[in-house]
């Protein structure tokens, strides 16, 4: 790795390398630390947190699918108070780079969460997971419409103060992801996270009913990688200066490189950590080796490389 400058930037923040965990796929970090030191990777993105404790959905919460899985956790979590009290201090004490992911049922809830985060030291960015059902509007997902997406980002922007980079996490389940990206960029985000899961369903042919208690669930894993690459490519093409945290089915350094070439400034590892607890670290090492082999001396030169001179 000697020759490679592997660092990357999201807004004003610098990360020592571009491999992050994906929200909801590393809990709040401690569990993975048994397998490798979390300071070895660029950042831990914590599970999307809401204002209050959430029980989440009934089980079954998951179904394996070909090269993928569905999940329907229902944003189970301790709520922002307990999270700030128990989880953040441990991460800070262990010098882990932290990106806090937040989720809300109303525009206001996002604002409240942003306000709670503004004074917390040791956080490097906030990821705004807008792929949540809006209880004020028939459960329509915020990320699916430009107006609701914009409203959430504006609420966060107003409440968070000037310091912390805001990353909007978009859903691929839209007719035109570039349009949504454009809206949140205009609303002032510093980066985008692409992609959240695709809405899917598995029917158990034994019981002849939907397998998940929540009926539908989010599809993740290698199955969706081509959709992630396409989304990242399209958005980077339209907004080459907006950093993208890419994710979706990354399970190897080769996969991470694919997202980087498409336009990702950082790559989050989600489902792959379920199959392999060392995945994030291994992917970091493989990516660094691949980049070096290809003659890159600065990681940032590889970002969006597939767009050049095609």
């Amino acid at each position, binding site marked *: 790795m000697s020759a490679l400058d592997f660092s990357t930037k999201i807004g004003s923040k610098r990360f020592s390398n571009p491999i992050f965990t994906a929200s*909801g*796929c*590393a*809990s709040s970090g*401690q*569990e*993975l630390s*048994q*397998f490798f030191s979390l300071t070895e990777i660029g950042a831990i993105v914590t*599970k999307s947190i809401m204002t209050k404790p959430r*029980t*989440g*959905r*009934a*089980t*079954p*919460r*998951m179904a*394996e699918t*070909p*090269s*993928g*899985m569905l*999940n329907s*956790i229902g944003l*189970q979590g301790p709520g922002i108070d307990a999270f700030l009290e128990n989880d953040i201090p441990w991460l800070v004490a262990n010098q882990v780079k932290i990106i806090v992911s937040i989720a809300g049922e109303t525009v206001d809830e996002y604002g409240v969460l942003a306000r709670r985060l503004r004074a917390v030291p040791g956080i490097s960015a906030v990821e705004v997971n807008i792929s949540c059902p809006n209880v004020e509007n028939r459960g329509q997902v915020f990320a699916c419409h430009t107006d609701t997406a914009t409203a959430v980002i504006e609420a966060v922007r107003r409440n968070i103060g000037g310091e912390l980079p805001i990353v909007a996490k978009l859903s691929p389940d839209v007719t035109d992801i570039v349009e949504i990206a454009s809206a949140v960029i205009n609303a002032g985000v510093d980066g985008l996270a692409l992609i959240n899961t695709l809405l899917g369903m598995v029917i158990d042919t034994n019981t002849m009913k939907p397998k998940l208690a929540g009926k539908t669930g989010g599809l993740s*894993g*290698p199955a969706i990688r081509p959709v992630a690459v396409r989304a990242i490519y399209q958005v980077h093409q339209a907004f080459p200066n907006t950093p993208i945290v890419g994710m979706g089915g990354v*399970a190897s350094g080769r996969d991470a490189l694919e997202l980087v070439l498409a336009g990702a400034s950082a790559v989050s590892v989600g*489902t*792959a*950590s*379920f*199959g*392999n*607890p*060392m995945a994030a670290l291994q992917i970091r090492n493989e990516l660094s080796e691949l980049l070096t082999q290809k003659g890159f001396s600065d990681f940032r030169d590889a970002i969006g490389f597939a767009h050049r001179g095609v």
Partner: protein
Amino acid sequence: MITPQKINRNAKQIQAEVLSNKKVGPYHHMVFAVGDMAAHSKPGNFVAISVGGEQSSLILRRAFAIYRASDKGPMGGSIELVVAPHGQGSKWLCGQNVGAFIDMVGPLGTAFGIPTTNANTMLIGGGYGSAPLFALAEVLKNRGCRVDMVLGASTANKIYAPLEGKRSVSSLTLTTDDGSTGIHGQISEAIPRLIREYSTEVIYSCGPMGMLSAIAKIAEDFDIAHQCAVEEAMACGIGVCMTCVIPVKNEGGIKMVRTCIDGPVMDGAEIIWDRKTVMDAL
């Protein structure tokens, strides 16, 4: 209340060589070379195994209860599993030959708690759920406990009860749904009489959720302790995905705890077994 705890601190990811793979009735008894992992394995712990090989479309690990662990032997530490060839993943595992290397994470999860005094214990296993009970029986017997074992299944050959496993038990009762061996009927039907007969003070159980739930009810009626090893679908096995949860009582309400970290061995009295109660609370 169950206090949340973090991942089993002995868990490691290793490449484990298959030392033996034998068909026993409808199951495969498999032995793996695991080095240090054996010494850290306690009855109730499980391992999580990658299935399907390099090109696999199966991306999630499969959990298997540790049947027994031995930290010495010609090949160093080893653990044994009892695998039912059920779906794609377990069939693949059962198809692995001696000498193959298997990606394994373990030991994972909680272990059966051992009474500090020499209590009368009853170990109840359904199907391959009997697997972790034999090692537990040994530990209990060494502690001076009375160990009564009750094993049930739908039919005779699905009861996993190897000869050498029986040496630590004071009594062994078999039940089958079809009456092909032992007592005719569901395992839970036989339990109340046996509890009275053996003056059972602690129940350990492992098997299908329906069986565990029935036993939990009985334990409550008799007001005796009940530790059960539950089995929920797990995506990661290491506490990061939140798919494997089970509802437990929490300050009058309900709380979802991870069975891969706070289980699989849990206090049967803490679990909310009734699905309607759970659905209403959500």
